[in-house]
């Protein structure tokens, strides 16, 4: 038996969510007294692969094949399922990232496994019982799911598990599974990656704006605040519906659910659909000129005031704090 963790990389570097998933998978391997194998697909240098060992992988399978240069979920799922069989892995762990969501259901079907998606805790394991908590109703609740199959696939929510170093052997092995031509029907034509911005689903700090900002031309101050804090920018649904910001920034029940350490909401009243998408944030700061805005009821810190006066002062305060730190 073993636990297999699929590591995601961007431009040859493991993502933060991958380190979280390795740490998480290591803890499951310890709980079940078994070993942890990591699998990495694509151009990843040996020094980077070694990091999987540093965070707890006993073995690292490296798949390097020109055909697998771009992510194609059908082909990647076949490779990961093959690795699970080769390693005799009963549990496969992935990040619940955009790519992870494409992979996990396919791997589960291939392995005849139950799939617990978007989990936020370590499983409770006793005998044959395997129970784990996940978010449900777009953040309005949690569900406890029990996987009853022998093989199990678990995808971990971003920012839900602390990264811990846990040095293990991390022996690197090349793995060359047989590839099926029919897995490559989808062709990646172009990948457009903006490198200067923090990715919203993974962000530790999010600065978000609502209709209170009055128009897209007023986002400059939020972008400045976000860049000072190393934060991603986000918005409410009315803002993306009005075309002020892209849909990919829309946080809420029908947009992205985020769980950063710090969520700063500026000029957002706090409709129930928006609150659902941010409820698992660790700390919420609300800036709104209406003291009756529902968002204050779920905030940890609040400033009642006009965004156009408060945000520039906040920017100055962050600059001062950074200069003194």
């Amino acid at each position, binding site marked *: 038996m073993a636990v297999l963790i699929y590591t995601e990389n961007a431009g040859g570097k493991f993502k933060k969510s991958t380190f979280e998933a390795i740490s998480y998978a290591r803890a499951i391997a310890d709980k079940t007294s078994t070993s942890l194998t990591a699998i990495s697909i694509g151009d990843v240098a040996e020094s980077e692969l070694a990091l999987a060992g540093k965070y707890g992988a006993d073995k690292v399978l490296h798949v390097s094949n020109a055909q697998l240069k771009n992510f194609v979920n059908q082909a990647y799922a076949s490779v990961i399922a093959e690795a699970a069989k080769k390693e005799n892995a009963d549990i496969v762990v992935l990040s619940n990232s955009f790519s992870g969501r494409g992979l996990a259901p396919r791997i589960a*079907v291939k392995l005849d496994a139950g799939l617990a998606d978007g989990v936020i805790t370590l499983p409770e394991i006793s005998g044959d019982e395997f129970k784990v908590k996940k978010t449900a109703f777009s953040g309005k609740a949690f569900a406890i799911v029990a996987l009853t199959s022998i093989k199990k696939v678990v995808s971990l929510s971003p920012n839900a598990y602390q990264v811990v170093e846990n040095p293990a052997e991390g022996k690197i092995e090349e793995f060359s599974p047989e590839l099926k031509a029919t897995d490559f029907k989808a062709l990646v034509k172009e990948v457009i990656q903006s490198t200067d911005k923090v990715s919203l689903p993974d962000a530790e700090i999010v600065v978000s704006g609502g209709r209170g900002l009055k128009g897209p031309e007023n986002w400059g101050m939020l972008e400045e605040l976000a860049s000072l804090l190393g934060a991603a920018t986000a918005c409410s649904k009315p803002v993306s519906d009005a075309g002020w910001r892209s849909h990919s920034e829309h946080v809420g029940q029908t947009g992205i659910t985020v769980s950063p350490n710090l969520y700063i909401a500026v000029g957002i009243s706090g409709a129930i659909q928006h609150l659902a998408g941010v409820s698992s944030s660790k700390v919420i*700061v609300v800036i709104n000129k209406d003291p009756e805005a529902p968002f204050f009821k779920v905030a940890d810190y609040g400033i009642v005031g006009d965004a156009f006066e408060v945000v520039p002062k906040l920017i100055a305060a962050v600059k001062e704090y950074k200069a003194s730190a």
Partner: protein
Amino acid sequence: MKILVCISNVPDTTTKITFTDNNTQFNTNGVQFILNPYDEIALARAIELTEGGKGTVTVINVGEVSTEPTIRKALAIGADDAVRINAKPQDAWYVAKQIAAYIEQNPYDLILTGRESIDYNGSKVAGMLAELLDVPSASIIKKLDVTDATAVVEREIEGGKEILSIPLPFVAGTAEGVAEPKIPNMRGIMSARTKPLLVIEPVEVTGNLILSGFENPAARGQVKLIAADDSASLIALLHTEARVI
């Protein structure tokens, strides 16, 4: 082109979520159910792609008779016909197996689902269905065009996007941006009553997951208010008390 749109019946987005039976059942009392918003935009795109006699749109739902108002809504919006698999949708695996069994008997060129349902947020049905049918899939689709038998899609990735070309048939999980939701007009509402709605019985599925309970998030403490001209205190609190910066 024959398009199949998989639809879910979910609690309205304004629903306050509570549970009964010692937190093991979702409390549906007084809850308004709607067409899952992501499925609604999948349906809107399907209708656009088949406009002008270029094809047909079928909606499929795994649900008991209580979901028929939602199915009729989809017909009112513009689907040509509907299929209801008469069963309680136990989980994504169960639903994917039912729909795959139907498609094996009734092939479609393009299968659309929403990127996720807003109740269990699994994003699982599209991938499972594609794997069961052994066809490609892509999710969080923000643009979808079809020329001849090939689709070009734009998929969201962390911090960017990806353009893929995918031969039909395949399964797409659609997100905001792919189309604007369509509001049914009076003619649509009238014709929805008479459009075909086929009810079929489910196939046997061996389950692998049990939903054993629910919890509501812990309530937050009282908000700590900071004076509007005292941003420095907020930054200090975030650093020393909350320890998030």
